[in-house]
C-alpha cells in the first residue's frame, strides 16, 4: 500500500462523524415526499342506455368501507350487485377501521387504489381538504344519471334533498354522497322511563331536571357521558343551540362569524348543561377508545343511566347487549323555556355515512356506478335490513316493520318537519369539531370549566380557523 497511510482510528472517526448527523427522533420527518403530478388515465367504456355512466366492463373495482358500527355487509351487497352486472370486473371490497391511514397516502400520491371510499369513523379523511386539493371527483354525474330502478327518474329525484346540500362545499359541485339518515338526540329506554320511573319524555329542561332527580332517587344516573369520546355530547346539544337562538346562531357557527359562539343562546344552553353536571346527574368513568360501547352497555344491559347522547346507529351497535323489551327510543332535545326561537322537536338529523370517489381513481366510472347501485331501492332496503337505519332513498322502507329505535327516529323526523338542523362546519372545518369542541367539552363535562370559558374556547378556535391560511373557507352563497 506504499505511501497511503491510514489508520483504523481515522476511519472510525469519519464514520462516527457521519453517524452523528443522524440525530434520531423525528422519524416523522423522513417519511414524506410529495407525489408526482402525472395524470393517470381513468378507465372508460362506452355509454349506453344500460350503462349510462360509461363503465368499462372489465376494469377492476376496489371499495373501501369503514368497518364500524354499521359493519360492511351492507356494502358487500352492493359490491355483489356490481359483480353481477360486470362479472369481468371482479370487484373487491376492503373493510377497515383506519380509512385515512389506508387510503389517504395513496390519494395524496395521485395514485389511489380505491375507487369508492366510505369516508367515515374516527380516522376519516378531512373532506374539505380533499375538495380543496381537487382529490375527489364531482359526483353530480351520479345525481344526474337515471336511477337504477326507473330510467325516467334521475338519481337526484329519488333522494332526500339534504344529501346534495351536505355534499356541497360552497360550490355547485357535489363531492360527497351520504347514504343513511342519522337522527341525533337523547336516546332512552321507553320502558325504564315510563314503567320504571313513571314519567314521560321531558319536553322542557325543567322537566328534564325533574326526571333526573327522580332517577337519582332510584340510584340511576339521569345522564351519561362517554369520556373517551367527549364529542358525543354535541349530539344532544346542537339542536338546543338552534332551538334556543334560531338558525342564525348555527349559520354563524358554520361561517365562522365573529362572536358566533358568544351568542346569548349558546350561553343559556351551556348553563343548562352545567346544572346537569353540577348536580352530579351524569354517569362518568368511561374512557379509552371503547368508551361509547362501555357507556351503551351500562345503559342497555346494566340499566345504570337513563339518557345517552347518541345517534341512530346505536340501535344496531348495541343490539347484542339490548334486552328485548328495552324499547329503545330517541327524543328531541328539550326546550329551555317559551323564549325559544324554534319549537320543541327541532332535530339534528343529517345524512350520514359519506362516500367519496377519488378524482384520480383508476376506475372512476365504476366508483360512480357503485354509488348509483347503492341508491337503488333494493340496496337501500338491504341497507335498512342490515344496519337498521333509514336510507336516504325516498320510500325505500315503506311498509317495513321497523324496530323501535328506527321507528322512533322516523317519527322524530316527521315531527320535526322543516325544523331539521345540520352543522355544516363539521364537514367544512372538521378540526373545529373533532379537536376543539372535543377538548373543550371534556373539561366542561368534568366541571373544570364553565359556560364562559367554554364559549371563549370555541370562539377562539373559530377565529383561529378563520385566520388560518391552510384552511380553505366556504363563503356564504
Amino acid at each position, binding site marked *: 500500500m506504499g505511501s497511503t497511510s*491510514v489508520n483504523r482510528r481515522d476511519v472510525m472517526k469519519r464514520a462516527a462523524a457521519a453517524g452523528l448527523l443522524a440525530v434520531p427522533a423525528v422519524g416523522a*420527518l423522513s417519511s414524506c415526499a410529495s407525489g408526482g403530478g402525472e395524470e393517470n388515465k381513468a378507465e372508460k367504456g362506452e355509454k349506453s342506455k344500460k350503462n349510462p355512466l360509461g363503465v368499462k366492463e372489465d376494469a377492476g373495482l376496489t371499495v373501501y368501507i369503514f368497518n364500524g358500527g354499521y359493519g360492511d355487509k351492507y356494502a358487500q351487497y352492493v359490491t355483489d350487485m356490481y359483480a353481477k352486472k360486470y362479472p369481468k370486473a371482479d370487484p373487491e371490497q376492503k373493510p377497515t377501521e383506519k380509512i385515512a391511514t389506508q387510503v389517504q397516502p395513496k390519494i395524496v400520491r395521485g395514485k389511489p387504489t380505491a375507487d369508492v371510499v366510505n369516508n367515515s369513523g374516527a380516522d376519516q379523511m378531512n373532506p374539505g381538504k380533499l375538495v380543496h386539493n381537487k382529490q375527489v371527483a364531482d359526483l353530480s354525474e351520479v345525481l344526474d344519471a337515471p336511477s337504477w330502478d326507473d330510467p325516467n327518474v334521475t338519481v337526484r329525484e329519488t333522494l332526500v334533498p339534504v344529501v346534495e346540500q351536505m355534499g356541497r362545499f360552497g360550490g355547485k359541485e357535489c363531492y360527497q354522497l351520504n347514504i343513511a339518515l342519522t337522527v341525533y338526540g337523547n336516546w332512552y329506554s321507553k320502558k325504564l322511563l315510563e314503567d320504571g320511573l313513571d314519567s314521560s319524555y321531558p319536553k322542557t329542561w325543567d322537566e328534564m331536571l325533574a326526571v333526573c332527580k327522580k332517577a337519582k332517587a332510584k340510584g340511576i344516573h339521569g345522564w351519561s357521558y362517554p369520556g373517551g369520546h367527549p364529542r358525543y355530547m354535541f349530539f344532544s346539544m346542537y339542536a338546543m343551540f338552534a332551538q334556543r337562538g334560531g338558525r342564525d346562531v348555527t349559520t354563524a357557527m358554520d361561517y365562522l362569524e365573529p362572536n358566533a359562539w358568544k351568542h346569548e343562546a349558546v350561553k343559556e344552553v351551556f348553563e343548562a348543561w352545567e346544572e346537569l353536571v353540577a348536580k352530579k346527574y351524569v354517569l362518568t368513568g368511561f374512557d379509552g377508545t371503547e368508551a361509547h360501547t362501555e357507556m351503551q352497555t351500562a345503559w342497555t344491559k346494566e340499566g345504570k343511566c337513563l339518557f345517552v347522547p347518541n345517534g341512530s346507529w346505536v340501535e344496531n351497535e348495541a343490539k347484542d347487549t339490548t334486552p328485548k323489551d328495552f324499547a329503545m327510543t330517541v327524543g328531541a332535545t328539550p326546550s329551555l323555556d317559551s323564549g325559544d326561537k324554534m319549537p320543541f322537536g327541532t332535530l339534528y338529523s343529517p345524512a350520514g355515512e359519506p362516500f367519496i370517489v377519488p378524482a384520480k381513481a383508476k376506475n372512476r366510472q365504476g366508483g360512480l356506478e357503485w354509488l348509483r347501485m347503492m341508491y337503488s331501492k333494493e340496496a337501500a332496503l338491504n341497507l335498512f335490513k342490515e344496519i337498521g337505519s333509514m336510507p336516504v332513498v325516498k320510500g325505500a322502507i315503506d311498509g317495513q316493520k321497523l324496530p323501535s329505535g328506527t321507528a322512533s327516529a322516523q317519527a322524530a323526523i316527521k315531527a320535526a318537519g322543516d325544523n331539521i338542523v345540520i352543522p355544516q362546519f363539521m364537514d367544512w372545518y372538521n378540526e373545529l369539531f373533532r379537536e376543539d369542541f372535543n377538548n373543550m367539552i371534556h373539561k366542561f363535562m368534568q366541571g373544570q370549566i364553565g359556560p364562559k370559558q367554554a364559549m371563549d374556547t370555541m370562539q377562539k378556535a373559530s377565529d383561529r380557523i378563520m385566520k388560518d391560511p391552510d384552511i380553505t373557507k366556504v363563503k356564504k352563497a
Partner: protein
Amino acid sequence: MPPRFTPERVRYDRRYRTLDKYRFIVGFLAVPLAFYALFVISPFLQAIYYSFTDWSGGPVANFVGFDNYEKMWNDERFWDSLQVSVLLLVIAPVLTLVLGMFFAYMITSGGRHRRGRAIAGVAGSSVYKVVYFFPQVLSVAIIAVVWGRVFNTNSGLINGGLDKVGVDGPAWLGGDETLGLISLLTVISWSFIGFYVVLFSAAMGAIPKDIYEAALLDGAGRARTFFNVTLPLIWDTVRTGWIYMGIQALDTFAICLVMVPPHVLKVTPVFLYERFRDGQYGYATAIGVVLLLLSMVFSLIVMRVGNRDRIEY
C-alpha cells in the same frame, strides 16, 4: 491521483499525504455514505424545505417563508403539546435512569457477601436480568393497548385493585391532565427500564472487582460504594443513556397516540401527526423541524453538563 502515478516529489509532500488519506477513506465509505445521504440526509433536507411551504398534499407547494413557524408560535395547541413533551423530557429520563441504575446495582452488587466475594447480585439476579428485558421485546402498540386496559376507569386492573381495598379509583386516562401524564410516565418508564438495567449491568460488570474489595476493606457500605465507586465509573454510560432516553421521551408517539385520548393530553409528535392528517403538511413539517432542533439542543446540553474527567481503569 493514485500514488504510483504521482511524481516522486509530490508524493512525499505532507499536503498530498493528507489528501491521499482522505481519498482512501472516502473510497471505503463512498457506498454507505451515498446510501446514507440518499435515505437519511435528503429526506431531512426535503422536510426542512417543505416546512417553508404551504404544501397541503397536492401537487403544488408554494414558498411561504416563515409563515408556518409564525403560525406555530401563535398556536396554543402547539404550546400545550410542547409543555407535555418537555415535562416528559425532564422527568422520564430521571425516573427511568434512577430506577434502571438501582435495579442494575441490585443485580450486580446488591446481594450478600458470599464466600468471600467482594460483590454479588441479589438471589436470582440472572433471572431478573431477563425478566426486566421483556417489555423491550413487546411492540409499542401492544404495550399501549394493554396498559390502556390496565388504566381503564371501570374495568381496569388498577381501579379494580383499589376497589378491593375500598378506594374509588380516579379516571386515569379519561380524567385530568396530571393523571394522564402520570399514566404516560409510568408506561414509558416501564417499557424502557429493562433496557437500562441491561446496559448498566454491563457497565457495572466491567468495573474491576479489586476496586470493590478495596472499598469493602475500607469499610464502605453499599450506598457509599455505589456513589463513590460505581456511579463515577459508569458515568459515561449514564450520560449516553440520558441522551437516548431524553430523545425517546420527546418522541413518545405511539404510546401516547394509542393509550391516551387526545383530548386529555397529547405530546408534540401526536399534534404533528394530527396536522398531517388534516392535510397541513407544510405546517406539520415545520413542527418536525422544531422537534429536531429541540432534540439536538437537548443532546448538546446533556453532553455539556455531564462532561467530567474520564476515569481510566
